[in-house]
């Protein structure tokens, strides 16, 4: 069935911070959506997140024009070319932020998280580094598709901390993986099937620090369109305190209206 991605996005400084260090880019022509949360003093967090999203888009765009463009790093087994290209783009973004951090005097600690998704037919490539997240709402169930590269999340995975302890820990903001910190970075990549009605959420931790999974699921389930859901999520996070920058991209996989004849034709094709 012909499908299209409906998207909405919103970013806000929040109620406490002075700068918005989050960046996002939507490239519907490539079905590519990227979000990054920057860190570091002065304006370096903003610079890091902007470099990240721009580099990811740039690399994917360049690969569209030139499929033999080399990949940064080793290709991962068991995923398709588009997923490996996304990983390559993130490794390249790491290199660019890393160089910027090395070159800009006094900008150590400059870094960024990244979450990115790209759709190709019914396959979605999912890639991330850091503690920004990707969720999927399917059949009313909210599922986190990424695992935070944070100290507390690792402790929980190892069974050394409960989810409740993690939620109140003062170590919540400590990342174990981010872009721009080392010359090389390991990128987590997975692939997901996309079916009609799936809603995908990319968000910075400014959202998930303020809202529970249940609140997020309710907004995604209730809102009529993706942009409304994005705006509503940001508003709720601000009402809950807005302690950090908050950025969301909401994607909805909706079926294109298909005429009765096209549908029958499709049927025959499928059952042949």
């Amino acid at each position, binding site marked *: 069935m012909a499908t299209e991605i409906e998207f909405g996005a919103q970013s806000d400084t929040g109620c406490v911070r002075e700068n918005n260090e989050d960046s996002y880019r939507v490239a519907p022509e490539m079905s590519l959506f990227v979000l990054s949360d920057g860190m570091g003093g002065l304006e370096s967090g903003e610079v890091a997140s902007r470099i990240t999203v721009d580099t990811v888009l740039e690399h994917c765009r360049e690969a569209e024009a030139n*499929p033999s463009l*080399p990949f940064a790093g080793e290709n991962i*087994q068991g995923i398709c070319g588009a997923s490996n290209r996304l990983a390559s783009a993130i*490794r*390249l973004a790491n290199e*660019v932020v890393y160089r910027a951090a090395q070159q800009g005097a006094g900008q150590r600690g400059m870094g960024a998280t990244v979450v990115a998704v790209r759709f190709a037919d*019914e396959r979605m490539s999912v890639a991330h580094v850091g503690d920004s997240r990707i969720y999927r709402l399917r059949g009313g169930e909210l599922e986190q598709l990424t695992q935070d590269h944070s100290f507390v999340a690792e402790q929980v995975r190892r069974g050394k901390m409960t989810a409740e302890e993690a939620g109140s820990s003062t170590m919540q903001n400590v990342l174990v993986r981010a872009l721009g910190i080392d010359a090389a970075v390991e990128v987590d*990549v*997975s692939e997901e*099937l996309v079916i009609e009605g799936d809603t995908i959420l990319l968000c910075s931790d400014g959202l998930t620090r303020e809202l529970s999974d249940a609140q997020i699921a309710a907004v995604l389930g209730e809102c009529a369109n993706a942009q409304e859901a994005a705006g509503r999520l940001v508003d709720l996070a601000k009402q809950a305190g807005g302690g950090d920058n908050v950025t969301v991209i909401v994607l909805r996989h909706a079926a294109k209206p298909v005429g009765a004849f096209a549908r029958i034709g499709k049927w025959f094709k499928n059952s042949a």
Partner: protein
Amino acid sequence: MPKLVLKFENSVLKEMAVGSKEVSIGRSPENVLVIDNPAVSHYHARVFNEEGRLMLEDFGSMNGTFVNGQRVKMVTLKPGDSVGIGKHTIVVSESRDLDGFTSGNGGSKPAAPKINETVMLDTKERREFLQKVAAVGESAQVSPARLKIPTLVVRKGRTNQREYSLNDKLTVVGKSSMATVKLKGWFAPKAAAQITRRDDQTYYIGAADKVPSVNGVPIAHPTILKSGDIIAVAGVELEFVFRD
């Protein structure tokens, strides 16, 4: 470092260094070296380094791979060899200009930009970096000699195979073109269920158009598969096992 020069008749189309990363050759855009010609298979052949030797392997392509006129399956390449794929020729040569990247004194450090300037690598720098990491920044993936291969064995229902090795991170059960476990029949759903591999090598079964059951119990959320689990969905039964 050896270099591959792709030629069509007398014109050079592309040049590519072969580092530790293999160069896959074929018509599919997923290949490193793409030759867009109907005479070329989607995944035609590959060139790779093995213990200092440059190897060429044909993936059982329809029209074959030729080295200096001889059809080959797997051979060692040397500088000057001419590899024929369809009407294209790939000439093997020693590359001088790329050696700078491996010796570490390439000297491509650009002038330090101010932090509040946009610090993007320009196109040339980005290309250099890509060449560098594509050539030297990797180690060959070593897989353990005896690996347990997760497998789905069809116990009941109509599918296109009796058994499936789960090599990919995503496995779809359904009638969709992207499905690995292809369901047959008029009313089979396009995507009945999905199995995803996480980085810790666990396999999760999740719902798609249908909610699968594991050992007779419908799953409420993505569920880890254990050896011996029976998955039932859309009229088929699949046993999940780890094979030697």
